[in-house]
């Protein structure tokens, strides 16, 4: 029963990789999706993710409760989002450039405050074992999932529903589609976008908590490797639809998992290029979906102004 899996090990490792690597992509893209729906773009999610990872790890280590860590990460993300939201609500401030500043600031703060956290081991989030039916250790290992994964899936569905059927969702979408219409309805564009950026930061930072409290499950300076940066690309790929964010996260998680999986199977040349696969994939997607003559399908109209 416990003979080697042979070549089946590669797709299994990819599947396991997707289950472990996708959730951060999912959370960060859902957060970015909310922000972009309101007509603003937050390129600083990388900083939010790293700060979230650091604060979740730190609080979990200090308090012993990983869930408190997740909450702390969300709160920090909310604050970072608020800073971005406040600055961008001033006239003539470029949200894309400011996002890069927030990325530097978030990373700097996280690396600085997280210096003491590289050594200690924080309490990790519990995981659910879906591979209980199998005797193959590889299968058991691959099918472990974290509780945050179903939380993220539920959040995606809730967000999809909320954008469609609730007043708040409509207001956010309206702000993204037409500034004038929002004003005419008596809503403050700045308030809506501020809140959307702040809550988007909250959601994105939970992805960071997943990184440090589940997989890879430690804190170091290279924990995120640009996943927050890719949030913008994921949302473009998902066509600003929260449900599609799930598929986008799976594909990006898979692209990230395929390199190590092949390496484990003994195919180890071109490691670096393999690791760049998600970035190349994003570029290709952007080139295919963009056009000079027509607007992006599904893109919030006000976002188009800052994106082109």
């Amino acid at each position: 029963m416990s003979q080697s899996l042979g070549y089946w090990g590669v797709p299994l490792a990819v599947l396991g990789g997707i289950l472990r690597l996708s959730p951060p992509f999912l959370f960060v893209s859902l957060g970015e999706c909310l922000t972009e729906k309101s007509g603003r773009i937050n390129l600083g999610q990388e900083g939010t993710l790293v700060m979230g990872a650091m604060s979740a790890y730190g609080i979990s280590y200090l308090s012993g409760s990983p869930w408190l860590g997740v909450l702390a990460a969300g709160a920090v993300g909310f604050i970072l989002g608020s800073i971005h939201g406040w600055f961008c609500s001033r006239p003539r401030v470029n949200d894309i450039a400011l996002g890069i500043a927030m990325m530097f600031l978030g990373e700097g703060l996280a690396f600085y405050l997280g210096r003491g956290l590289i050594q200690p081991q924080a309490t990790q989030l519990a995981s659910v074992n879906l591979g209980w039916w199998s005797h193959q250790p590889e299968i058991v290992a691959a099918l472990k999932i974290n509780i945050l994964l179903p939380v993220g899936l539920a959040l995606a569905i809730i967000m999809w529903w909320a954008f469609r059927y609730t007043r708040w969702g409509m207001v956010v979408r309206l702000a993204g589609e037409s500034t004038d219409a929002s004003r005419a309805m008596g809503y403050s564009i700045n308030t809506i976008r501020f809140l959307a950026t702040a809550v988007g930061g909250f959601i994105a930072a939970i992805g960071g908590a997943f990184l440090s409290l589940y997989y890879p499950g430690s804190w170091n300076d290279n924990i995120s490797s640009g996943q927050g940066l890719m949030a913008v690309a994921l949302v473009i790929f998902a066509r600003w639809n929260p449900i599609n964010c799930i598929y986008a996260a799976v594909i990006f998680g898979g692209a990230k998992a395929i390199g190590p999986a092949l390496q484990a199977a003994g195919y180890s040349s071109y490691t670096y290029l393999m690791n760049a696969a998600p970035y190349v994939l994003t570029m290709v997607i952007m080139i295919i979906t963009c056009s000079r003559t027509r607007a992006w399908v599904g893109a919030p109209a006000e976002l188009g102004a800052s994106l082109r």
Partner: protein
Amino acid sequence: MRISQGQIWLNFPVVNAVRARSSFLLRLAESLTITGAALLASVMVFSIFVAIMKVNPLQALYAMYLGAFGTSFSWQVTLVKASPLLLTGLCTALPMRTGLIVIGGEGAFVLGGLFAAEAAHMVMGAPTIIVWLVMAAAGCLVGGIWIMIPAALRVYRGVNETISTLLMNYIAIAIFNQLVEGLFHDPNSLNNPSTYSIGDNNMIGDIGNSQVHWGLIVGIGICILAWILVHHTTLGFSADLAGGNPKAARLSGIRINRVILWFAFLGGACAGLAGMIQVAAVQERANDGLNVGYGYAGILVAFMARQDPLAIIPVAVLLGGVHAGKILLATQLGLPNSAALVFQGLLFLFILGAETLYGRFSIFQPRVRT
């Protein structure tokens, strides 16, 4: 609309010139004041941050000043750090004149350095000046094409250049690592994978007795050339027009796509040249030491200089000072390098936020005669 006498009076060329000069001074005063205020604000917030970390902020700031501008040695360190920033700053500043926010300087920088090192290896044995020219050509070409790709995607496909250049930085670093450990690898560099050395005799020397290499002068020279290009040539004027009002530019017969591509190429070439100089004057070979964020810092330089190539020179020196100052911050006060990253982030945040203050203060506005 009624034309008042004042407006006719203003059409006299001499008066126009005087007005233009005074408004230039006013604009200079405005940007100096606002940039200074943003600088002050970031220093204050950084002080608070440092104080919370139980380090005396005055001590920290003094250490930073001392490490950056305190002694002639620290000035030299600052200038060496500033040298690549002059050129990577142009990589963002030049395309921005045409309305493109390019943040791919890091990618162009590392690839420029890598291919320059490899080019030097190929013409090994040639006279030094030939080696330099070949290296510079390789660096400029690779860097220029690297930034021209996203510009072309933007122009012909509508792909947002900020996001694509950001992604291309990661792709560039992957290509860099792959080539350094693969095709271009020097088998003798086991611990720290590198390309072949460009040769001791091909290194760019230092100015006089200092430790500042001649690349600094090259960088300053190119900034001045870029200033002339931007402010005193037809191409530069077309770029400003294309960036300010693409429709008007197109109507007046400017082929804006071509202008945008040219400026992107020139910007990328500057970053590639910066990589080449870093290899030829500091590193001697291309390896991981190239990949330390000069490209990203260049974005900050360009924004602080408000896309003016001459203003890049003092700003690059200032930011070089921040990078030099962090060494003393680490050795004297035990603050790690990430503290300087925090400072840089704050600086960036406030400089960009201060953009909103332009035009708000009436004392800086040129008086319009009626």
